[in-house]
């Protein structure tokens, strides 16, 4: 834990707004005591099933479940046992495991902003801890599901993933509210460690509601030769969401960070990805596809910093406006501090091409069907290394997103 001066800084940060996104008055929401529950029967009639469905899961898949401020300690699925993977609520891991204590709050400082400060001081360290030992390839996706099922609550989650040297893991997380919950706050702190020559794919689906405010704070550290694929989908209305995940790469590490955002209603979506190429030969590709309808505002940020020789990176931000009242702002930043770094970006915002729409309508598709096909195509990105099972699930989500995106 931090020293008293450190804690004072965190307390001070309770009032510190984030640099991006609307400032949320957390005092308007209720804070619930964090607890860990060993009896899964508490899930019956909890609304979890309905929340999980919205992110493409059934409630039996996740190894970790968090309802509001209650972590449900489910026995690790047998299929994962043979890989010696540790999955438990971080709250417990911090008590039992030295490695958890070593990794917690190292990539994200608690005093970063008011949301991290609140999570640090009041979050109760709920969230999951996943530890994959060295030289272990876990072919099965590891699922987790976090849901807010009660009005006006703040949900905190602090997730730590460690993938040991030469190992491989695929983590899928869904965060959601069931239909009917209209107000709340979700603050998620995620720290990912990818060891030497290890690989982590992290797929996340968010499905919120018009009065939810969401502030994920994510950081990843890739040791040499490590690989990190971050694949993020958000398709629901939201009050506001602001996130800017940051990956720091050592020698020859590489990352692919994709965000697929379908914004609607009057939500503010401020989302981005950042990669810092610290190591020689490291590389990053940041891709975003954003679709805006109704009166939503989407800020699509991306930044790559090339700080080492032979590093390379590319940003591709594409936006599609579906209504006159919506707004997309694409903000790619590329920075190089060495002669031998190659970084580029492309950004474009447009509307559905009339020629393509007419073409599909000539093939017998109605205007709505044709738009859905084009929006679905627009949102297709080939995220490398995502397991086929997860890809199928994501594809189903995107099929649904494309139908919803056109209203």
């Amino acid at each position, binding site marked *: 834990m931090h020293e008293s001066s450190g804690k004072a800084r965190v307390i001070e940060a309770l009032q510190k707004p984030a640099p991006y996104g609307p400032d949320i008055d957390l005092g308007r929401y209720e804070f619930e005591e964090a607890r860990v529950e060993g009896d899964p029967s508490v899930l019956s009639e909890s609304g979890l099933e309905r929340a999980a469905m919205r992110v493409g899961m059934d409630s039996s898949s996740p190894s970790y479940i968090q309802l509001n401020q209650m972590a449900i300690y489910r026995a690790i699925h047998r299929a994962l046992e043979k890989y010696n993977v540790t999955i438990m609520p971080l709250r417990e891991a911090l008590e039992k495991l030295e490695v958890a204590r070593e990794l917690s709050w190292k990539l994200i400082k608690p005093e970063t902003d008011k949301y991290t400060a609140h999570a640090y001081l009041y979050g109760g360290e709920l969230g999951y801890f996943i530890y994959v030992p060295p030289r272990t390839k876990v072919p099965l996706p590891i699922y987790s599901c976090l849901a807010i099922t009660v009005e006006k609550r703040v949900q905190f989650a602090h997730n730590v993933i460690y993938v040991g040297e030469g190992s491989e893991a695929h983590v899928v997380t869904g965060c959601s509210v069931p239909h009917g919950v209209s107000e709340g706050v979700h603050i998620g702190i995620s720290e990912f460690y990818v060891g030497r020559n290890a690989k982590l794919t992290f797929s996340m689906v968010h499905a919120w509601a018009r009065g939810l405010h969401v502030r994920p704070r994510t950081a990843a550290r890739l040791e040499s030769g490590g690989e990190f694929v971050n694949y993020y989908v958000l398709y629901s209305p939201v009050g506001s969401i602001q996130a800017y995940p940051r990956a720091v790469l050592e020698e020859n590490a590489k990352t692919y960070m994709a965000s697929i955002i379908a914004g609607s209603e009057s939500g503010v979506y401020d989302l981005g990805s950042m990669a810092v190429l610290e190591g020689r030969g490291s590389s990053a590709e940041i891709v975003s596809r954003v679709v805006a309808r109704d009166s939503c505002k989407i800020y699509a940020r991306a930044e790559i910093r090339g700080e080492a020789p032979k590093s390379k990176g590319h940003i591709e931000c594409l936006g599609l406006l579906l209504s006159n009242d919506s707004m997309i702002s694409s903000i790619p930043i590329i920075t190089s501090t060495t002669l031998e770094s190659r970084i580029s970006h492309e950004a474009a915002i447009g509307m559905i091409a009339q020629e393509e729409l*007419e*073409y599909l309508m*000539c093939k017998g598709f*109605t205007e709505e*069907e*044709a738009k859905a096909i084009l929006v*679905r195509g627009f949102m297709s990105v080939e995220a490398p290394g995502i397991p086929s099972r997860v890809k199928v699930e994501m594809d189903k989500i995107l099929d649904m997103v494309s139908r919803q995106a056109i209203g």
Partner: protein
Amino acid sequence: MILLELSGLSVCINGKEIVKDVTLEVKQGEVHVIMGPNGSGKSTLLSCIMGLPRVRACKGRIYYQNTDITSKPPYERATMGIALAHQSPPSIRGVKFAEVGKALVKKCGCSDFTFMTRILNVEELLNRELFVGYSGGERKRAEMLLVMLQAPKLALLDEPDSGVDIESLDLISNAINYLASRGSSIILVTHSGNILNKLARLDYVHIMLGGRIVYTGRPDGVLPIVFKLGYREGIKRLLGEEAVGG
């Protein structure tokens, strides 16, 4: 049975009359060819039959299966069995060729997907984005497949033979012959006529000049003269012969 009837049809684009007073009947199972130099209005005529929004019937009517379809949107015409093979279909990023193909199979109930992909040798294109980076021949073959999957009663084929290699020309003509053998009526537009000697059935040839169909005849009587003399001189000869003959 008359499938399509154009009655005094004039077609405008941005207020300018491109096709003028065309009257034409196509019976079920017939194969018609419309020939003419570039810019004579052939493609505009097909686009109007399909109902593309940028072309407008400014005079006359279009009847299909005894129904006036002049004001119907393109997807309704497609649902009724009309399909257009575009001369230059647009590249559609992110949308896989196979996805559109499968959606059409689902919509139109066509059961010969695999067979048709083989006829046109497009298996390797199925997982690619639709028309993105395709060669001229690949583009025409892929578009032809999508038309076939619609199981059309009336296929409107806009320059299926332009800009394609010999192998693609053979594959496309095989596909057209397959469509015709299944009873589809076809209106094929071509300015070069490259494909015509590969077609198993050809009922009428229409020559279009300056937006008008200026001559209609049987292929045996028209094609040798047009191929030998070109459109303008050929038409003079044909009309002269008609006058003498008449």
